[in-house]
């Protein structure tokens, strides 16, 4: 029996950058992309970071909200909006009856949800295989103006709203959140589109003087 290495869906697209890799939640991921000072300057100007290794849990169906509420989760009231669970885990309401939960490091929420039985009708677990990015920097809206199908310079992402739209031809879920005291954009897409989207966004990012940063810039790894 082979013991394969579980790699980030972006791993091969990142290889030319020669990142320092590490294991996060059992997934080999780019921990550091460059010197800390360089990453910090990219972060301020324009940067992209692969956070596909964060744990996620998806559920949908007409009774999904009831099922999550029974698991003591606070859910977004509006369609296409998100909230923080205990100021840590992201809870996204995708449309009317689908939810995505993403936890930071050192959280047990996804494991607890996975351990719960789904033994009622109208509740269906959704297998997630997302590629997920964090985009930061003062030129982020410039980046999105080049590739995003809708205008993000207005109030599209205000008041914890999220949008499901197209970036560079790829269907994505997009929101803006405060992370470590800074406003950043979060992107989720199907993992198989991840390398293409990474290359496209990174190419534009580098044209503007920014670049890639590693996972450890946002999350402290033990």
């Amino acid at each position: 029996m082979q013991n394969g290495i579980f790699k980030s869906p972006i791993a091969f697209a990142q290889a030319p950058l020669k990142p320092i890799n590490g294991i996060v939640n059992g997934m080999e991921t780019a921990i550091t992309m460059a010197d800390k000072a360089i990453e910090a300057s990219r972060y301020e100007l324009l940067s992209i970071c692969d956070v596909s290794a964060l744990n996620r849990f998806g559920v949908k169906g007409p009774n999904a909200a009831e099922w999550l509420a029974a698991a003591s989760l606070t859910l977004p009231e509006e369609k296409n909006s998100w909230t923080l669970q205990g100021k840590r885990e992201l809870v996204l309401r995708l449309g009317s009856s689908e939810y995505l939960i993403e936890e930071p490091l050192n959280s047990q929420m996804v494991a607890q949800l996975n351990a719960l039985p789904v033994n009622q009708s109208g509740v269906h677990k959704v297998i997630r295989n997302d590629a997920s990015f964090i985009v930061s920097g003062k030129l982020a809206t410039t980046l999105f103006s080049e590739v995003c199908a809708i205008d993000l310079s207005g109030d599209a992402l205000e008041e914890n709203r999220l949008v499901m739209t197209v970036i560079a031809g790829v269907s994505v879920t997009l929101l803006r959140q405060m992370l470590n005291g800074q406003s950043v954009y979060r992107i989720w897409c199907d993992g198989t589109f991840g390398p293409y989207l990474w290359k496209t966004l990174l190419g534009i990012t580098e044209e503007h003087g920014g670049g890639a940063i590693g996972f450890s810039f946002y999350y402290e790894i033990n």
Partner: protein
Amino acid sequence: MKLLECPINGIRPISEFTYGGEYRNMPNPDTCSDSEWAAYVHYRNGAPGLKKEWWYHTPSGTWFIAERNTMTDKVNRTYLLGQEEAK
């Protein structure tokens, strides 16, 4: 740029959508005649006019109905199937 309103996600560029064909009421296969069933399966009405159509918002996976005049390409309204009265 052409725009279309998704009932869930709001107004978006048409590039986010896929056309899913005309919405037609299916006759009851247990009670309809063979000719009625054959007409439903094989015939399409190509004459321009106000039609109900299936449209799909790709990023969110939302299927919905658009009432579109295929002569003028004007969309009168869009709604989720079964929620026509709510619009």
